[in-house]
């Protein structure tokens, strides 16, 4: 970890529309290893929130257990945080979201937290389309317990001691697409230019937004032979497109110039602008997204960028038809039917 973070800030740091400078979005000093990919993702969250003019207190950050799940402490110190139990962040986020639909929910998890102990909750949070952004900081290993393989470690990948993983890996992005996730992206902690617009778009997406971010573990899984090392990822990365997130576009249109640019309009007026690179891929078509991911895997490539999106999906509140007001704001007079009504209820049991 880095022990000293200079307090000095440039006196003329740019301010966002709310008048905040970027440091207002920072958190406690990170205790992760120097060079950890997770800290880059945290910095991406800070930048995205700053640029999106988010009031930090209107965002709740939730996580499970592990190195990745520690990171919410290291950004957005003006947000409430909840470091829950291992693999169970999705349920806590679901409950929190049900209690107050007006906040932004940022879930942070790791590959152990999501693909192993938390797999059950992960698949069900997808089914329910909770309006949240769910970032997996995926390094293919268990950092806090010193480098054991995780379920996303690729078959054939070597760990620090040279031992090869013999098991099939779980590909979280294709799993999420398969299960009906309404926003699925993949990125690399070393590619901020791509990651930040994806985080922004994910936060704006009115449903479950999943971003699987390859985030090398510099201490336990950055060796030769590992498929989650910085070098390997840089050599094998492929992008579906370059991504721009445009916050308040005036008109909602989907224009698609074949093979070049695609804009995906969102209902709140923002849009995602994709400058497409991948061929035969349509981010609005689940099947073609699945094909693109599978094909890249076959070619030993890591496909990044926005993979799939369904901008029209209904989130859990819409599915349950809950009131527009946050449930935690309802008054006793609305919630409690009162004594006269109870007399009638008693009558039904006589």
């Amino acid at each position: 970890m880095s022990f000293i973070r200079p307090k000095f800030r440039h006196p003329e740091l740019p301010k966002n529309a709310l008048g905040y400078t970027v440091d207002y979005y920072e958190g406690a000093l990170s205790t992760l290893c120097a060079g950890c990919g997770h800290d880059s993702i945290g910095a991406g969250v800070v930048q995205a929130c700053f640029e999106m003019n988010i009031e930090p207190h209107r965002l709740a950050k939730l996580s499970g257990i592990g190195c990745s799940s520690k990171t919410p402490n290291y950004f957005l110190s003006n947000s409430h945080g909840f470091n829950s139990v291992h693999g169970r962040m999705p349920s806590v986020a679901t409950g929190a979201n049900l209690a107050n639909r007006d906040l932004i929910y940022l879930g942070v998890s790791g590959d152990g937290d999501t693909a192993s102990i938390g797999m059950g909750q992960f698949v069900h949070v997808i089914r329910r389309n909770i309006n949240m952004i769910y970032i997996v900081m995926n390094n293919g290993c268990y950092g806090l317990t010193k480098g054991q393989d995780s379920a996303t470690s690729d078959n054939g990948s070597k760990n620090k001691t040279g031992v090869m993983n013999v098991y099939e890996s779980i590909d979280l992005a294709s799993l999420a697409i398969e299960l009906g996730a309404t926003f699925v992206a993949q990125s690399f902690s070393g590619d901020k230019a791509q990651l930040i617009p994806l985080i922004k778009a994910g936060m704006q997406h009115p449903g479950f937004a999943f971003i699987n971010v390859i985030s090398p573990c510099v201490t336990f899984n950055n060796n030769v032979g590992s498929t989650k090392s910085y070098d390997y990822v840089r050599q094998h990365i492929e992008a579906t497109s370059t991504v721009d997130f445009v916050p308040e576009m005036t008109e909602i249109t989907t224009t698609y110039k074949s093979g070049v640019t695609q804009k995906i309009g969102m209902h709140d007026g923002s849009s995602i602008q994709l400058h497409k690179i991948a061929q035969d891929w349509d981010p609005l078509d689940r099947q073609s997204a699945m094909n693109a991911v599978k094909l890249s895997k076959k070619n030993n490539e890591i496909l990044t960028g926005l993979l799939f999106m369904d901008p029209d999906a209904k989130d859990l509140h819409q599915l349950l038809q809950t009131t527009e007001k946050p449930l935690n704001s309802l008054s006793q007079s609305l919630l409690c039917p009162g004594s006269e009504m109870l007399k009638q209820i008693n009558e039904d049991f006589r």
Partner: protein
Amino acid sequence: MSLSTLKVNDFVVRFANVNGSGSASANFLFTKAIFRMGIFVTPKNIFPSNIQGLPTWYEVRISEKGYLGRREGIDLMVCVNPQSMASDVAAVKPGGYFLYDSSKNLHDQYIRDDIHYIAIPLMEMCNNAFTDPRQRQLFKNIIYVGALSALFGIEFKMLEDLLAEQFKGKEKLIPANIKALNLGIEWVHQNHIYPLDIRVERRDLIGDRIMIDGNAACGLGALYAGASVAAWYPITPSTSVIEAFASFSDSYRVDPVTGKKNVAIVQAEDELSAIGMVIGANWNGARSFTSTSGPGLSLMNEFLGLAYFAEVPAVLIDVQRTGPSTGMPTRTQQSDILLAAYASHGDTKHVLVFPATPKECFELTADAFDLADELQTPVILMTDLDLGMNDHISEPLKWDDERAYKKGKVLDAEALEKIDKFGRYLDIDGDGIVYRTYPATHPSKGSFFTRGSSRDEYARYTEDSAAYKRNVDRLTKKWNIAKNMVPLPQLYQDKNASSIGILFFGTSTFSAEEAMDILRDQGLVVDAIRLRAFPFSQTVLDFIDVHERVFVIEQNRDAQMKSLLTIELQIDPKKLIPVLNYDGMPITADTILNTMKESTFVLSKFKKIA
């Protein structure tokens, strides 16, 4: 018939049916008709873990004295299930009655010479009267209800009224039901002496009482307490808590203008997720609860430890069933006590409340939400299958409109403005109960990090031993404060009158009260206390202290409440004598009395009433 055998409003009827054959509504009709005649009646559903085909029983105790516990010994058995006939014949008390479907001859092995047989050709009558196969099946049940009404003297108008209520909106179904009832009545009139020497007579004992199951009352309690998020996983016998909550929510939580719901109910993928959602919602300021049973509570242990340590409110309704493991899913027990009290690893303790009646299911569920918010900790309502799934006669449910939800120490934006630095775990009031904030309260004040790891007063992660110890010692302080906040125990006497005490809780209450009555009739007096909560208040300790011996009545094998009392109150275990019932059936007064009488040492100490 001699007068000595005449039993008015004091007998037990058991129905032996096939699961899934439509007997439940017919049997309920029988029970409710007696209730409407102003007589105390207690039904117990003894059902299999099965959808269709296995034997199921419905046992009804009718009691002029108002005893609501179960009683051993069947006075009249209605047997329409050949599968269970051998044991059903054997279960009838000498001198009792065995009513059966005589469409087929009764095998010789079922003939006892010490009981009476009432042979009604139910199937034959049904086949002659109805053509539709489903009606032929269903109305067999209604015919025997008609026959019983004649045999016992149940007022026909009560049955008629109940059918009219049941089929409101589907009136065309009523005549066929009336026809079936009359078939049974006419058969008795033509073939049997009626009424029997066991019979019912109208009384005015019920007053304004209601008949409701505990689970429905819990669901209503959660509704009235303002629960707006419910998360659950289906499990017998707790499922009907959420079903009741959902059904009442459909009536009382839908915005009349928008049609949108002021409630969110989610069926989770498992109990881990259910309790996680409950904790997430409570953390975010919405009252939220789950209902479960033993196996679910086992799974929820991890999260309960988090909620205890991170101090997040949560309400759980544990409808206990027979354990361990899957045990007997459709039988009752009070066997989750130690699991619930100390759920999760490390030093954990949880607040428990023990309702004994549907009225208390309603009240204590509502109280549990206040307690959880005030103490910022999980509160577990310990009910059971017997109370939860069986209809009980209960005092009517009451709600005081002056009652305001106690949300505990929650700081709003205005309060945060006034303080310099918010410390989530700072014991400002010296009672161990700290201040919390909901997310999104204030732009720059009041945010904190909730975690299950050790933290200091400002919610900052720490591995400092002193800070850890300060925190867990504060939790103990809070625990001690809770002793004076939880529902008080019920003492049955103003002044102690015996060196012997009895102690009980939950569904052991009815039979314990009956046992006390019987003892009193024999000139023996005991003092009694009913627990309503854990942690135990001083009253509980005082009661045990002043008595030479205390019988602890409970429904589990290992005397779990005795253990809990011994551990928590530092009592000599020899002082507490266990009275245990754990075969899955609700405890009876006879079981209690027999165990007490076996304890010869104690019996000699009974103080006789002068």
